């Protein structure tokens, strides 16, 4: 397992392709947005309130057959009340006590979950007093015990009801994965039409480009599901068995 092995491997690939020496193919990776991407970026930046409302409508249509519980909240208090109700109604799966795991995120801070919920809220940050691996292990244990995980999606794709989450400090991947119920909140102006818009934005938008895909970008469409036993659909295979999506409409 040396650099030499790698050279031989790649030389072999080149030989198969009929090429004798390493080459560059700059055209393969675009240096600037294509006309198509430019059009998409334009469309996103010019999106009006009316168009966003249409996207919400499309989102509703896509979410229903996927068994996503979609809620539209007109302000942050309504959103918080919604989550409080979910927490009160549902029972825990992996522990006797109700605990909630949440991301550190400006939007979630505004929900003020510790005040809104009866259950203790654990924010997904490793304990700085512990070593890296140990801190991470403890944190995962906490999240695994929680029955609800609250995240804030970077984007939401209306056509397929797909959530887009990136990994960042304080925003553990396991919060959208280990708890039985995943509640994701997204602001209405973060709605995009489809994957094409997302990829254009991540590739070319000056603000999004720097972060790019991050170490781990996850697209989530619906609660966890399987059809491996006689092709019968069952929710909650390994990930969350319920997915609640709260769309927060602005200034209304």
């Amino acid at each position, binding site marked *: 397992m040396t650099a030499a092995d790698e050279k031989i491997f790649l030389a072999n690939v080149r030989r198969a392709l009929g090429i004798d020496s390493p080459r560059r193919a700059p055209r*393969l990776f675009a240096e600037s947005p294509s006309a198509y991407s430019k059009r998409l970026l334009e469309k996103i930046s010019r999106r009006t309130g009316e168009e966003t409302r249409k996207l919400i409508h499309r989102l509703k249509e896509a979410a229903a057959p996927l068994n996503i519980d979609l809620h539209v909240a007109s302000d942050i208090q309504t959103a918080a009340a919604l989550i409080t109700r979910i927490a009160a109604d549902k029972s825990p799966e992996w522990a006797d006590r109700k605990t909630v795991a949440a991301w550190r995120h400006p939007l979630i801070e505004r929900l003020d979950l510790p005040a809104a919920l009866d259950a203790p809220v654990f924010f997904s940050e490793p304990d700085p007093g512990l070593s890296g691996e140990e801190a991470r292990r403890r944190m995962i244990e906490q999240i695994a015990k929680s029955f609800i995980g609250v995240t804030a999606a970077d984007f939401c794709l209306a056509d397929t009801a797909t959530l887009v989450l990136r990994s960042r400090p304080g925003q553990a991947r396991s919060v959208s994965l280990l708890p039985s119920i995943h509640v994701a909140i997204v602001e209405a102006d973060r709605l995009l039409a489809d994957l094409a818009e997302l990829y254009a934005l991540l590739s070319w938008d000056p603000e999004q480009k720097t972060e790019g895909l991050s*170490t781990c970008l996850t697209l989530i469409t619906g609660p966890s599901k399987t059809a*491996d036993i006689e092709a019968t659909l069952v929710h909650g295979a390994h990930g969350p068995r319920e997915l609640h999506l709260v769309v927060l409409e602005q200034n209304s």
Partner: protein
Amino acid sequence: MTRITTEKYRQQAAKGAADPVLRGALANLQNRFGRGTAECYRRLPEGPDLRKRAKRARQESIDHLDVLLERLAEKIRSRGGHVYFARKGKEAVEYCLAVCRRHGVRLAVKGKSMVTEEIGLNRSLSAAGIEAVETDLGEYIVQLAGESPSHIIAPAIHKTRKEIGRLFADRLGIAYSEDPPTLTRAARRALREKFLAADMGISGCNLACAETGHITTVSNEGNIRMASTLPKVHMVFMGMERIVARLEDHDMLFRLLARGAAAQNMAGYVSYIGGPRQPGDSDGPEAFHLVVLDNGRSKILADPEFREMLCCIRCAACLNVCPVYGRIGGHAYGYPYSGPVGAVVTPLLVGINRAKDLCSGETLCGACRHACPVDIDIPRMLLALRAKLADGDPRWGVKRTSLLEKAAFVLWSKLAGSSRLYALAMEAAALAQRLLPGNRQMIRRLPPPLAGWTQYRDLRPLAGKSFHKRWKTNDRSR
């Protein structure tokens, strides 16, 4: 190495075809997914032609594989990930074992990966005292039963809920049930413990993105997210062709993949993973290893006749429409890749002679080509394989399979080329057929080597007087 039983295709196929439970399950699968996929393609805003565009993107990527792989490796290394290029399956397995030793791995959780089936990773891990647990529900069922997957996407399609109920009662100690939600919950419980205790997560890669330097994993259950997020080491195995150049291309490819694989508009979970957890990240593995595997793929790449096969994204759409797969099931093909894709890929990977019956087993009906999200011309390649078997091919080390068959066809073409000879031969054959068992209406049994023709059906005898002759007599009598 994984067990290869392609030589027993005929017996295995006969066994599958004779199993009524299997045929019912396959019919159910094909009715749902096969039809659903076709409907999904029709509803695409760009229309079914999107498949042609997707193929072009795949082909462009395959033609630049060296550049793309270098770029991917460079990006992943810049984030602290490790990349290892393995020419042979054995090297890939050894690399994995070395990483296991370094991290003291005792328990590994696996997401579904065809490549690890191909290199027989599980056997090697267990030989080294490492428990490797399959976590995709279908794969888990198959592993508990000590069997092998029979479909790329629905590995346990050959098992009934009753069988699974008994298996779980036996192995997981739960009360017998044949209710899919109850059984799924039992597996959810059992596997969750494994996820939380595992030292290593192993996954495949659906389609890497060279431009950004990420591998991708796709699942509906969330098991691959678990395997790639919770254990301290994440190990990825990827066939070297599973990469495209640009993020933009992923748009159409993932839309088509979800439609081809499960008649969905979008898969449940798609993750882009670019390396181990970065400073400040809350979770994710501390070590990330990517193994890029050749294992015979560069040979396919070098042959223009078969290079197209490397565009395959292993969606299984072709299995869901294939009339042959639908009768015999995946185990008949004797290797992890089954159905039309298996009938081409398997011979190219394990040896064309060794898997000679696979390409003759398929009917050339063309259904696979219409179902394929990247428009791969499988029938053309099935024919190319048959031609190699008939004529031999030193480059692929193919020996002629049947000189007798070849001779028979040479003779046939001579006969068909001359009406006089043809008429003579037919008259002789019409006389000879009287010696065969059967009545006047039907021939029941032909002697070897033609016996196969009458194994499952009777043959109509040749008419005593040919059409040609009758036409002439009629003509005269008019």
